[in-house]
């Protein structure tokens, strides 16, 4: 209905490779972008800072993880540690007087260096074993951050990040911080969208499908695995630093624990591997859900005057969060992005039953 591929025929390779193959999708994306820019005037300040802004930052982080997991097919269970490296590097740089715009880039590079170490594991093993190694690396990095007082500022300490300023302008209002997050998210999204039609993206997908087969046709799988890890780590580092600078304002080790790694992975998988729109949807679901459940149970206890213990109330959202991950995987293992894709295929073929492939 909205998509109508029947009238669109590409007669040139350029047309066929265009970012949006159906005009409707391009217009929809532009409309969404416009809405995002106008958001500070449309939605309330509380929603903006507590929902939309973390959503955008986590989406950019999740997109970076999707690059390595969805595009290059390398499992990564230590992503939060890489983000943590960036967050600490950025905060330390900013605290020692480096301007934020440089500190953020430094954070990206610091993460890139540490994150590329992960790819050494990817050179040796894949699949499950890679997942386990990265998980162990997360533990090692966590341990180092906590135990090296130079980094964390002593055990159980938290570091305050200086106020954000970019290119000489102080950024302190809600809208300003929101725009920083939005800009970064848009940047990552554009990068990821173009990846699909670039040589790099195709090489990554070749490596994902069968790394030795890719090797045989001349795609050097190690190089591309390294590039994938480096690029995703850079995104992780910057996202980590942006998260601290615009949202948390304080950095502590437990902000980037194993649980957080699992959370970002859940965003990617619930959203759909290799799907950009899916990553947005998955992040939204994973972020909003626990708070929603907590509020729901809280409301229910007050409404029906149930005697649910404080501890029970505290742990139920966790159980619901686990159940949500399981439920999404059972319902559509390929993620929300796949649901969108199926709907799109259906609408393109409509009113005919099936898309003949």
């Amino acid at each position, binding site marked *: 209905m909205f998509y109508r591929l029947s009238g669109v025929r590409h007669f040139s390779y350029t047309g066929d490779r265009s970012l949006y193959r159906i005009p409707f999708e391009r217009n929809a994306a532009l409309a969404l972008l416009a809405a995002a820019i106008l958001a500070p005037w449309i939605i309330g300040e509380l929603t903006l800072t507590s929902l939309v802004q973390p959503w955008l930052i986590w989406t950019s982080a999740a997109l970076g993880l999707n690059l390595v997991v969805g595009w290059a097919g390398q499992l990564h269970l230590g992503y939060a540690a890489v983000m943590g490296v960036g967050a600490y590097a950025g905060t330390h740089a900013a605290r020692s007087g480096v301007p934020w715009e440089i500190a953020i880039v430094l954070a990206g590079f610091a993460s890139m260096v540490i994150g590329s170490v992960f790819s050494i594991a990817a050179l040796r093993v894949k699949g499950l074993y890679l997942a386990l190694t990265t998980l162990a690396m997360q533990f090692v990095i966590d341990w180092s951050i906590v135990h090296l007082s130079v980094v964390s500022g002593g055990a159980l300490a938290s570091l305050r990040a200086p106020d954000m300023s970019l290119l000489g302008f102080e950024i302190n209002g809600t809208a300003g911080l929101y725009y920083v997050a939005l800009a970064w998210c848009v940047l990552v999204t554009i990068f990821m969208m173009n990846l699909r039609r670039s040589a790099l993206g195709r090489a990554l997908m070749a490596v994902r499908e069968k790394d030795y087969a890719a090797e045989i046709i001349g795609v050097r799988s190690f190089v591309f695995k390294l590039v994938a890890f480096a690029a995703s780590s850079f995104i992780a580092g910057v996202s980590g630093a942006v998260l601290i600078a615009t949202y948390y304002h304080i950095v502590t080790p437990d902000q980037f624990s194993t649980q957080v790694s699992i959370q970002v992975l859940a965003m990617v998988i619930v959203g759909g591997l290799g799907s950009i729109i899916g990553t947005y949807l998955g992040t939204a679901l994973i972020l909003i859900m626990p708070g929603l459940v907590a509020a729901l149970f809280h409301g229910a206890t007050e409404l029906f005057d149930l005697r649910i213990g404080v501890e029970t109330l505290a742990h139920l959202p966790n159980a619901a969060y686990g159940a949500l991950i399981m439920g999404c995987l059972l319902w559509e293992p390929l993620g929300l992005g796949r649901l969108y894709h199926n709907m799109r295929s259906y609408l393109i073929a409509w009113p005919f039953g*099936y898309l*003949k492939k």
Partner: protein
Amino acid sequence: MTTASAEPLLSLRNVEVVYDNVSLAVSGVSLDVPEGQLIALLGANGAGKSTTLRSISGLLQAARGKVTRGEIRYAGQLVNTLSPQDRVKLGIVQVLEGRHVFEQLTTNENLEAACPVEMSRAEMRSALDRAYTFFPRLAERRNATSGYLSGGEQQMLAIARALMTRPRMLMLDEPSLGLSPMLTTEIFSIIRRINREEGISVLLVEQNAFAALDLVSHGYLIESGRVVMHDTATAMKNNPDIQEFYLGGHGVNFRDIKHYRRRKRWLT
């Protein structure tokens, strides 16, 4: 055709298969496999041969596919919704394309794994012996890890393993894939022996139409998810279209052919 009146062992009526809820792979395939016969299902890549086999053996669900329409009858019983396991119990067994052996198990363990649990020890031993008489080569490598067998041996193991389930109908998905012509001949002659000596009906899917039509009594030609031709093997071999599109030109001099692409006549 001699006994067309008896009810066939397996019959498909208008079977339609959809993958992933959106992609139509097979639309309206009907075919019959009479008891004790050798039947071939021919067609090009992506014509829907493997999908048809999977719809019969029930392995579609592993590939996110579904039979959305039509009937699959086996021995008079509707089997559309049965699990693969139940279908094997009824006697339908499929040898998968590309030699799926249990790579980390030995040859012997591969065969033992396929034994029904209710089979007694003595029965299992006689079934093993029977499998090894068809495939003497496997007997020699009884205790070898099957992942290290050669391609031909793995294909034999896959067929032998299917025999361990005591089938009435054996379905083979491209047994000649990646094998030398010599090995193909050997395997095809074993398939014929299995058919004659055990009375097992065989449904054979092949790309190698030439070898397949020598083996079978009847053939079906499937294209774009539809059956487009059904005839005896000899008639199919002599059909000019089949000759041109599937058997390859017999000494055709390409200079003499008129320079337009011949249309497949059944695609009107």
